[in-house]
């Protein structure tokens, strides 16, 4: 049985036995692009695929499916499913841990179909067969999802040497003025389409700080100061939470290296606190928590 067939039968069994009411996985479009598939009926399971083009981090769909209380209630189907199965790569599975720590849903509500991952190709979701692996995958040494209820595929016994993060070392090595100029130039390309935010499982605020109706903090202009506020603010909100799936960078129409900024924060948090987002279901040390008296009005 091919891995896609194993995945299909796993999904089918889960739906037929009623263990889950929904499966979030991948399918191939008629034009050959791999994309998210959300299926509720066993006979739809045959659509599911697994390949080195399954680049999306599907956990962005988990809260919408499960959490009635996150301000997105309007998006929900009439009766939200009690339990959802989701296909996760090792990086994606870390997002589940972050969201569990943040009480977005409970562990019992999720059935994680973990994939032994050997990396995703460049150009995914529609890469040429001979395409090389994405750089983030060349830097990654995780082959088994930290959260999984079933593991599909064989994790390789020997891992290739992880690639050092040269882009990050380079930008960190720039003199401060040059580094600032580099980032500001990148941010200024932004068109505030919010694709990065919408595709991010961790950007789950019911109302984003950068899109308040009252413009008290950040205005509506699609202009440099607002763009900079958005990028710097978002990066800080993701410190210790970003799992490095790189979806934000993949979807950005302007080619802004958002992942590079997030890696800078992730490495800073790791070196200061020894924390790597989502390796366990614990909160980011940078996330503020108000104690009882502080949160009183």
């Amino acid at each position, binding site marked *: 049985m091919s891995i896609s067939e194993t995945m299909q039968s796993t999904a089918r069994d889960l739906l037929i036995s009623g263990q889950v009411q929904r499966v979030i996985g991948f399918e191939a*479009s*008629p*034009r050959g*692009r791999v*994309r*998210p*598939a*959300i299926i509720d009926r066993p006979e739809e399971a045959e659509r599911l695929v697994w390949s080195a083009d399954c680049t*999306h981090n599907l956990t*962005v*769909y988990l809260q919408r499916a499960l959490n009635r209380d996150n301000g*997105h209630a*309007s*998006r929900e*189907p009439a009766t939200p499913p009690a339990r959802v199965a989701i296909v996760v790569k090792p990086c994606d599975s870390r997002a589940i841990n972050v969201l569990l720590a943040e009480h977005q849903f409970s562990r019992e509500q999720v059935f994680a179909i973990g994939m032994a991952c050997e990396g995703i190709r460049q150009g995914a*979701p529609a890469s040429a067969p001979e395409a090389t692996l994405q750089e983030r995958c060349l830097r990654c040494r995780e082959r088994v999802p930290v959260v999984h209820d079933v593991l599909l595929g064989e994790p390789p016994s020997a891992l290739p040497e992880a690639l050092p993060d040269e882009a990050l070392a380079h930008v960190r090595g720039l003199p401060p003025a040059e580094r600032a100029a580099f980032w500001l130039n990148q941010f200024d*390309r932004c*068109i*505030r*389409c*919010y*694709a990065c*935010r*919408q*595709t991010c499982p961790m950007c789950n605020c019911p109302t984003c700080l950068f*899109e308040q*109706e009252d*413009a008290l903090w950040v*205005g*509506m*202009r*699609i*202009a440099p100061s607002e763009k900079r506020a958005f990028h710097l603010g978002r990066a800080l909100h993701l410190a210790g939470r970003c799992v490095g799936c790189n*979806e934000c960078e*993949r*979807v950005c*129409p*302007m*080619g*802004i290296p958002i992942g590079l900024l997030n890696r800078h924060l992730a490495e800073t948090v790791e070196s200061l606190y020894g924390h790597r987002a989502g390796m366990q279901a614990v909160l980011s040390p940078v996330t503020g928590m108000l104690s009882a008296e502080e949160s009183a009005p």
Partner: protein
Amino acid sequence: MKTLSRENLNLWLDGLAAQQSLIAPHLEAQGVFYRPVQRAQEIAWEADRPALSAKEFLFPPSERLLKVEKRGPDIRLEVSPSAAPQAIFGLRPCDARGIRVMDAAFLETPPIDSQYASRRENTLLLGLACRSMGASCFCTIMGLAPDDPRDMDVMFTDRGPTLAVQALTPRGEALLAGLPIVEEPGEVEPASRREVGGLPTAEAWKESFGDARWAKHGERCLSCRLCAYVCPTCRCYDVRDEALPSPPGEAHFERLRAWDSCTREGYRLTAGGHNPRAAAGSRLRNRLLCKFVYYPHQYGPAACTGCGRCLDACPVNLDLLEIGGALQEAAQ
């Protein structure tokens, strides 16, 4: 056919860039974008369709409509000045049509949008025919062609050492006057076309309103605005008054508008908190039905030029041709 040598065209473009803002496809590390260029040499001639349309030069991502200055009892209103002249060279037929589509709402249906009108008045549309259609292009379904000159002031067709030139408007003719244009025998070679599968009729799109598939598509849609922001015809905007830094004793504000899209969650939020388009699928449906039903009904042209950008850009592959194709099959 009238032709102009590449050398003379470049000289002319250099001259144009010295007098006014010249916008053209430009190759950057992140892809090809319409950008202001200083010289003809900076133009990406061989490039595919730019990643974003050229609409931002007529309908900028955000702009001030009005400035308000309050000094004690005095209130001063300042309307923004009129636009400076600009020329867009290397414009694709689908992007020129996008501008014509915006004209229908901003210029041809009262009230006239004065900001848009002043930019439009000051913008020359200098087209460059596509040699062939890209993988996701479907301009032919929308009644255009890769070498369609109709919406341009001047249309150029690249023939290697020379370019065929055709003036389409009096403005275009005036622009070409005095150029060393050569009359050559023969006609311009038409661009190669690819027939693409059909889209539903306006009637069939309309009848799809209650189709259960919209909710299914909505489950996948991320409710970003990428599809609308890359689109040459999506022209929704939000208007807001924001405070400006003011000298002591004064209060300055600006009324500004910025791009918006019906695909975002709060687009139809009303006072009191009701959201008639709370479901993502209903917003996605609105975007497509606006293109093929509502906009043509209200303003005339279909609000899609077949550029195919939203097909390529959508992070989760919501594909207008696929969605429409399935609806059409069901309608037959």
